[in-house]
């Protein structure tokens, strides 16, 4: 129903761009983690686009965002919302990433297929912590949950990954 609304928001974001105090620093700090989280959530294609949209939102609404307790977590939700919409419009994506052209190492398709079967928040936690080496607290900030919840996602996610991989 919100075809128009979405279009409007994006254009207004693009038109309201204003580099206010602090936003550059915030973007530099949060962007790598936000991008990795959204790529883990939606795959490389949609994840990058969702990251751009979330960052655009941060720039356009920095005044409001700066007052939030956890702007990084809010931005992840912005990216999630956009990514979900992209996903609804696209064909099925079974993998997070195809074989990278720049890498000679073969990509682990079995593990990718298993990761896709995890709950999104479990997948994001597992990929950020064990794929990229982020701390529990860094992941907690992005997911906007307590670190105990991150630990919970990790434990359940890893247990499920093992089950899936062993049965495949």
């Amino acid at each position, binding site marked *: *129903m*919100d*075809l*128009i*609304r*979405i*279009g*409007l*928001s*994006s*254009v*207004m974001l*693009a*038109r309201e*761009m204003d*580099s206010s105090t602090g936003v*550059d620093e915030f*973007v530099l700090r949060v*962007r790598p983690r936000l*991008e*990795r989280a959204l790529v*883990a959530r939606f795959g*490389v294609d949609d*994840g*990058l*686009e969702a*990251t*751009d949209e979330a*960052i*655009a939102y941060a*720039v356009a609404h920095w005044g409001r965002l700066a007052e939030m307790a956890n702007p990084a977590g809010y931005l992840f*939700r*912005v990216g999630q*919302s956009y990514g979900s919409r992209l996903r*609804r*419009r*696209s*064909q*099925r994506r079974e993998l*997070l*990433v195809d074989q*990278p052209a*720049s*890498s000679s*190492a073969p*990509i*682990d398709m079995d593990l*990718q297929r298993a990761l896709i*079967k995890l*709950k*999104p928040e479990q997948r994001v936690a597992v*990929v950020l912590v*064990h*794929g*990229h*080496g982020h701390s529990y607290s860094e992941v907690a900030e992005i997911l906007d949950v307590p670190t105990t919840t991150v630990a919970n996602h990790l434990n359940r996610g*890893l247990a499920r*990954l*093992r089950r899936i*991989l062993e049965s495949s």
Partner: protein
Amino acid sequence: MNDTDLLTRLHQIGDHLDEEAARRRQAAPAREVGVSATSSRRRTSGSGLSSKVLARAAVVALVIGLGVGLVAVTVRDVDPEPASNQPVGTPVDAQPSPAPTYDGTKLDLTLPIVGRAWADTMAFSLSADTNARLYAVWQTAMAQCMRERGFPDHQPVVYPPNAPFQDRVNPLDRDYAEVMGYHELPAEPVDPNTYTDATYAALEGEDGCAEVAWDSTFGRLTYYFDENDRLRAGVASAITGFETSDEGSEVADEWSTCMKANGRSGFDSPSDAVRMYADDPHVTDDEIATRLIDLDCNLAVGYTQTQHEWEQTQLDAWQLTEQEAIGEAIAKREQLELELGAIESATYGSNPR
């Protein structure tokens, strides 16, 4: 498999994801760095059309609803450097239909509201009719502009009849489940136009028709959409968390047990089933069978009803905190509805749609 093996494999996947993300960013510099990426979306005077299309693809896909935007995305996938004046991309309706269709007017809207459906039921949201009128006047303005710039065959993209219903599919709608399984209601606009570099330049270039039509249609309505956008995000945020709530976890466990008892193991919650089937290009018999077992289990354990009540409670609390803003947004919606008539007159003139 031991833990060390699994962790090593996860680390390698992390490296692959970083590598590929970096490669894509290098290929599409507009996405490069946060603030400069967003600023670059505003620049329309680039050196090459293809890079412009790339740079603006994310915005364009949304600005034009889905019609032209989808074609822009198709172009990126098909050929990043198309030959000048050669048709690029394919009209959306030429793609094979990935799933069965369903008439959105047949949805059961009396079932307990959950999830994305809440936002459309809010008094500050635009009605289906208003959205359709806005979309029509916007597309008409774009086509008129294109005609004036030497593209006499450019046609308005028609508002998809299912668009008002896309967020209203209910997990308990059995008729829908029997046809569509876990798939979303298709509501993609059908774009009758074909696109060349010249078309894109007229549409998306500096002071292009997309921008001209945008300004003439929505330029004076931003007062409504700014606040509406914030409130809709608030609704989404307020109802987030059911699955991890105590009530949600409990009813999901009951649902999962019911599914298992009916031969469908491995699903911790209904969203697991959605993830497994919803993006498949086809609706399979297995999907329909699982969906119907899911629906029966949902009814047996009261999953959707529990979700509805939980979300209603969260929304009630949110609405109390936003009471004043919601009242103002309703007034702005009414003002927009009044102004729309004038915008339509200016666009259609003596040629009513």
